[in-house]
């Protein structure tokens, strides 16, 4: 039997090279594990066992013919259901796309598959990324592998839970306001939100186009680096990707890390934050000082405006981005009415979830004539100030460290009656996206109740190399990321 709990890309490739197991065996055993755990976890909307086994045979052929292993050769992975996967249902977690089978692959999917990765399934998520607990999904509620009474976080809860429960080695996710970092934190895995424009968004269902970023979940920072090597880069199909010098993030992990100046923004360590979280993150900071880094408190005075800027930008864009789900060309179509308007109203009315409707309505209002200047326009001005706030800080400090979430994972159903409270669960992650900067969430402890705690390492634009290096150093001196949930 393959030990999935220790399985990393490096370990898997060693196994392939030494002929300890074939790719077909890996995929078969992965699905055996999924079948055992999935009834409790519910991390997947769609499983792709047949295609995965076919791919595995191709990989085995390549390996047997002596070909060099490609970066993600034979690596089982999953993807949040907002990624379009050619020939495989992609719902975005919403009922309006039930049965939608895209005719094309998202760029990130294409890139990982070109280097041998094998899709095992599509992960449950809040519809189009709208949520912080994966409870808004049209299909099912995903459970936290650490305690199945608790939510896995959201919106990419299925991805985080799958990686946490070792169903697949990595998962592709999407982070508009914390949708990678917060579930990574709740499920105790590593999750990277990249610099806006570093990874192509093409083929990923848009939430807030100016905030959406494509990233990944993995058990270790090292595996995240391998995935980032593959998915980063300018894409001819996404005008918002930028030309950056090519970096080998994996090789850089081994480089000597200089002594860094790290800031702890005090706005993220207030008395509203769970004391166990503050304690764990401060302990992590002091562990880093032992590695020669200096840590001190800093202030980001515009933080209090970030949530408003985030939600106004995001949901205004949502109101337009969701207009294409009109019941005409794809997805759910209700044709019981007599005219075109009833197709719109019935299809959208019946299959958009409450959270989707809420955001469409608020976003439509914010863009309306006479309100645009006060809301959307103002939010963009605030974003400029937020960027400057961070830029100034990064002239003095190399990186910032903060809790990922102000609260510990909560129970399923606990926040469902209070949408505003649910929005504020993301208070520490949504503040990052309006500025476009990267942030890496890694496990840094557990509560007394054995629920995961995570910290985020935040850096200036295109500082992924440094984020990964520091996180890798932290993972080399701690074992939080190696702890695995005991799933009943």
């Amino acid at each position, binding site marked *: 039997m393959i030990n999935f709990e220790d399985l990393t890309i490096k370990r898997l490739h060693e196994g392939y090279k030494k002929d300890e197991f074939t790719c077909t065996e890996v995929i078969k055993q992965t699905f055996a594990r999924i079948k055992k755990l999935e009834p409790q976890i519910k991390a997947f909307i769609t499983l792709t066992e047949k295609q995965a086994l076919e791919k595995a045979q191709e990989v085995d052929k390549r390996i047997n013919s002596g070909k060099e292993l490609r970066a993600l050769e034979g690596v089982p992975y999953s993807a949040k259901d907002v990624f379009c996967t050619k020939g495989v249902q992609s719902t975005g977690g919403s009922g309006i796309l039930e049965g939608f089978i895209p005719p094309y692959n998202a760029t990130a999917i294409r890139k990982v598959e070109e280097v041998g990765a094998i899709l095992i399934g599509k992960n449950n998520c809040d519809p189009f990324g709208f949520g912080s607990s994966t409870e808004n999904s049209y299909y099912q509620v995903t459970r936290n592998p650490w305690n199945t009474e608790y939510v896995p976080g959201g919106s990419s809860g299925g991805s985080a839970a799958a990686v946490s429960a070792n169903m697949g080695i990595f998962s592709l996710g999407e982070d508009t306001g914390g949708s990678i970092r917060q579930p990574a934190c709740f499920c105790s895995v590593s999750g990277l939100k990249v610099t806006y424009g570093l990874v192509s968004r093409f083929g990923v269902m848009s939430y807030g186009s100016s905030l959406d970023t494509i990233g990944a979940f993995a058990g270790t920072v090292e595996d995240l680096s391998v995935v980032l090597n593959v998915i980063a880069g300018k894409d001819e*199909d996404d*005008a918002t990707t930028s030309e950056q010098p090519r970096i080998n993030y994996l090789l850089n992990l081994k480089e000597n890390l200089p002594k860094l100046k790290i800031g702890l923004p005090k706005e993220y360590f207030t008395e509203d934050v769970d004391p166990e979280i503050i304690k764990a993150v401060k302990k992590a900071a002091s562990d880093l000082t032992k590695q020669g880094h200096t840590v001190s408190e800093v202030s980001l005075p515009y933080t209090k405006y970030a949530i408003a800027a985030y939600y106004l930008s995001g949901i205004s864009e949502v109101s337009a981005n969701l*207009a294409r789900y009109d019941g005409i060309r794809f997805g759910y179509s209700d044709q019981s009415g007599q005219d*075109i308007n009833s197709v719109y109203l019935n299809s959208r009315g019946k299959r958009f979830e409450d959270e989707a409707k809420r955001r469409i309505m608020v976003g439509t209002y914010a863009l309306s*004539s006479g309100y645009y200047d006060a809301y959307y326009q103002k939010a963009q001005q605030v974003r400029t100030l937020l960027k400057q706030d961070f830029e100034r800080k990064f002239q003095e400090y190399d990186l910032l460290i903060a809790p990922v979430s102000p609260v510990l994972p909560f129970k399923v159903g606990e926040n469902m009656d209070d949408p505003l409270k649910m929005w504020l669960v993301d208070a520490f992650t949504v503040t990052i996206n309006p500025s476009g900067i990267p942030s890496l969430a890694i496990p840094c402890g557990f509560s007394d109740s054995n629920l995961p705690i995570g910290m985020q390492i935040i850096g200036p634009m295109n500082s992924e190399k440094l984020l990964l290096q520091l996180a890798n150093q932290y993972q080399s001196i701690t074992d939080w990321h190696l702890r695995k949930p005991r799933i009943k």
Partner: protein
Amino acid sequence: MSNYEPVIGLEIHVQLNTKSKMFCRCGTDYRDDLPNTHCCPTCLGLPGALPVPNKKAIQDVILMGLALDCEINKNSYFARKNYFYPDLPKGYQITQYDKPFCHDGKLVVNDKTVGITRIHLEEDTGKSMHITEKGGEEYTLLDFNKSGIPLMELVTEPDFRKAEDVFDFAKKIRQIVRYLDISDGDMEKGNLRVEPNISVRKVGEKGLPKYKVEIKNLNSFTSLKRGVEFEVKRQISILEKGEIPIQETRGWNDDKQSTYTQRIKEEAHDYRYFPEPDIPPIELKESKQAKDNTDEIYLDEIRNKLPELPNIKVGRFVKDFGITEYDAQVLTEEIEIAKWFEESVKSLKDKKHGKKVANWIITEIMGSSQYQLSGVNKLKIQPLQLADLVTNVEDGKISRPSGKEILNILLTEGGDIEEIIQNKGLEQVSDTGALEEVVKKVIVANPKPVADYKVGKKASLQFLIGMVMRETKGKADVKIVNQKLTELLG
């Protein structure tokens, strides 16, 4: 004489002739193909698909702006215009809002200056076909081949007071887009669409009337003119009854030659414009810097592509070639003709024959069926050959009728002028001795005209010249024939 005057402004949409669509790689050459065969995730608005702007289309619109003396916004951006319609796949159109690429230009037509408010770039929608079956069943078919075709929208100030000026302006716009080679500008095919906004006020009144009527589906220049004329009359007759026309959109019915109510505009639609977040703002640079990447758009490169525009070309032709303004207009109507003419003139040894070349092109070439069927670029005769032909005629090597005969051969079969002259024996007979014989023969054979001439009927000379030409199969040098006849008839 009416006490009313129309106030008309135009919205003109021009499909650009780029190879690929505005925001994706799909081809634009869809007209002869089946529905929905030129589509991709982006122009179908599939989940996750993103727009990437077509740089050539942006350059084309700026070129148009420069041609119409516009100000260019160096910092521009695309915006989303939100509304639901089945042929608008994303539920929003990507267009421009408060920062169009071009604004505040002008174009002079019939000695009147028409203000150009703005020129911006957007994407075309798909096409809806509303079907009613024989049994009465109704449904709509959608074709997205047209979805995402680059569309230039030009808006004028309400500066028109006559249908004729609207007609001439629209033709001028067509001429210019063809000069710039940015569109076919064909109204019948819908790649040039003119939508006039018409209202009428009392002569002497200032300011815009409180209502306006937009006319759609004018799919030819004739219907444009007739539509405007009809609508102005209709509105005047309403105003004369003391009423005010309803603000609405009216369609043009070509069969009935009248307009009809299409859509009565309720309160202003809220399109909730906001900057398109999928496309970074477009920043235009003046000129190329060494470190720039290849995506940049440079104004000086576009300026260099700006050809000599028709109005200026006319003036230069008149001045340089001594032709009339009318002839210059005809020769510059299409840039290909103008180019053909200039190329021909360039190869003339004697530049003073330019005027003759112009005449030959206008009367002989442009009048030929070959030209009218397939245009100047497909002609078998080359510009250099026309120059040779004109030179041969003017130098007296061949006669004018022989020249026309040769031109006809060159138009239908092509060939070499010298060979044709040789083969057909068309070399002009200027040998006075040989011609004297023929002239004498003609005098003897035509006693009546000769007598008429002698009593002062000068026109008879023309008849006798004609007879000599017939005898010589058109090869005689007319000047010598004339000279000999007068001499022999005393």
